[in-house]
């Protein structure tokens, strides 16, 4: 969500100039292809097929995730390798569904997929005991456990992470300028964190002598023009939405209790790396 607000802040100078359309996993690509939405910022994994034959472009990666399994604690399961024969709740049309089949095939295990389209319905089915296992991205599991479970302590997330799920905003082919704007709005949030600019100190930073920050915030003009935006584009993003770290803290750490992990800055041993803005 913050990605969309960042793009709106960059383009219109107002982070609230966004209209959100909630979509299920199965609807999302058709909605984007047909122009019902202009940018898809859900938990969409970057894959070859989606980048090519679906006619989409990924604008970057704002969350490095991986697929995990959640089970009831009283089943006594400690590893995904013990899940042969289990009924597994999964959302259709996701990479999760494919990874799941691949993983069980690779390990010669059986499973019964219970495929339900709506996230609310699928988690309800899991918590009612229809499935032994719920599988999705680890962040999704944490979110389901913290938000929907009656008693979060009754559930464990198994240690195996069976896939790489780079998640990010997606746009459709055919509008390169739009792709650029989404891509650099996302990078600006990471860059702001690298510079140490936050929504609180961004006004003070306008007086800095650092030429990189001056260029970034539009004190030295040029970057905005190159993107076809106002020179204050990055300033507006940081001021109204915050930098990547603030956004992560607000949406992931506080709500789901997940650490930065792979999503820390590269300088802190993570994978978040802003391309030079110049």
């Amino acid at each position: 969500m913050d990605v969309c607000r960042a793009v709106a802040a960059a383009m219109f100078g107002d982070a609230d100039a966004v209209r959100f359309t909630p979509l299920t996993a199965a609807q999302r690509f058709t909605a984007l292809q047909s122009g019902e939405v202009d940018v898809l910022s859900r938990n969409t994994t970057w894959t070859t097929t989606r980048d090519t034959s679906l006619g989409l472009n990924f604008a970057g990666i704002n969350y490095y995730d991986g697929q995990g399994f959640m089970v009831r604690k009283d089943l006594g399961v400690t590893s995904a390798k013990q899940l042969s024969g289990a009924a597994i709740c999964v959302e259709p049309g996701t990479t999760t569904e494919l990874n799941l089949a691949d993983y069980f095939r690779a390990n010669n295990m059986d499973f019964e997929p219970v495929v339900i389209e709506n996230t609310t319905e699928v988690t309800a089915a899991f918590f009612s005991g229809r499935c032994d296992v719920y599988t999705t991205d680890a962040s999704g599991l944490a979110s389901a456990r913290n938000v929907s479970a009656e008693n979060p302590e009754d559930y464990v997330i198994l240690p195996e992470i069976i896939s790489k799920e780079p998640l990010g905003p997606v746009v459709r082919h055919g509008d390169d300028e739009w792709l650029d704007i989404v891509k650099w709005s996302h990078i600006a949030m990471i860059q702001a964190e690298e510079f140490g600019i936050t929504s609180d100190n961004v006004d003070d930073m306008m007086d800095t002598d650092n030429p990189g920050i001056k260029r970034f915030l539009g004190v030295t003009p040029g970057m905005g023009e190159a993107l076809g935006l106002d020179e204050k584009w990055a300033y507006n993003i940081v001021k109204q939405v915050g930098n990547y770290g603030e956004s992560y803290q607000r949406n992931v750490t506080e709500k789901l209790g997940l650490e930065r992990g792979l999503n820390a800055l590269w300088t802190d041993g993570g994978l978040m790396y802003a391309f030079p803005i110049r």
Partner: protein
Amino acid sequence: MSSTQSSSSGTQPLLALIYDKTFRSILYQVLVFGGVFLLGWYLVNNTLTNLEQQDIATGFGFLEREASFGISESVIEYSPADTYGRALVVGILNTVKVSALGIFLATILGTLIGIGLVSPNWLLRFMGKTYIETFRNVPLLLQLFFWYSVVTNAFPGPRQALNPMAGVFASNRGLYLPVPADHPAWTAALIALILGLIGAFLVRKWALKRLEATGEVFPYLSAGIGVAIGLPILAWLVFGAPTEMNTPSLQGFNFQGGISLSPEFFTLLLGLTIYTATYIAEIVRSGIQSVPKGQSEAATSLGLKPSWVMRLIILPQALRVIIPPMTNQYLNLTKNSSLAVAIGYPDLVSISNTTMNQTGQAVEAVTIFMTIYLSISLLISFFMNWYNKRMALVER
């Protein structure tokens, strides 16, 4: 009249043509058809151009590629290593399975309630009315959600499964029933059953012919049932009367062996049956009430037994009224089965949705499942029209 027309057409041929009734009607039809055709062509062309501009893959080549997603229940063998084409066939069969069973059960339930509605018993009438008004006026999708939550929440987990009798287990993973273990006797019994049914049909034909020729009545119904049931039992006995059963047992997470009804299938079947039966009940009631009272009175005064009055006088006439709207309900049930996607039963729409999402070929996937629904619906309606024609009043 004709002379004035021909003279005016001589002076102003174009005007005459416009005032000509046949010409005008043909012109309108050509215009309408041309308009529709152009619109269709524009839509198809536009879609293809747009897809190409966005580099979205087109064509049906994806049907040959590996599906690599799992399907929970299937009539035929299926594994993630099979193709998208086979996955779609699994979906079609699942749709046909639930629709066929739904039509069968809804017809029985609906007929029973319909008869209850015209019964002289006040309580039966009242219960029938209440049932119809309740289930007909709640959207089917909500009923499905309701039944699904009842099924998954009311039944215990597999380890505490209800075990009402030996070999039968009911849990929130589904209903598990024992089936006879593999043995050639069962195949023989099945073949005997088919032969028995053909035999019963032939007996009926012969009995009716004899009735027309000699007027003698032969109890073909009981004889036919005897043949159809007796033959399979005989075959089973001849092949050694095996009684060994394949009973489900708890292994690991779930039951293995026997046959199972998944909660999704059960919910969908229950929802469709209960919902459609309300409409069928009303159709049956109106059919029975459409036969004038004089018909049954006349039949009784001729000395026919009450069961014969129902079978030979009332039912044939009621069926003429019942069949056409019944066709409609059968079609509705089949189409409503696509709501399966909401509760996770792997029907055609559910699998098409997954396919469309993994391949991104929405236009092709939607075209495929629309074509298939159209074919199933047309098949049902062809069959029902044929049956209707057979039942129609033969006027001499």
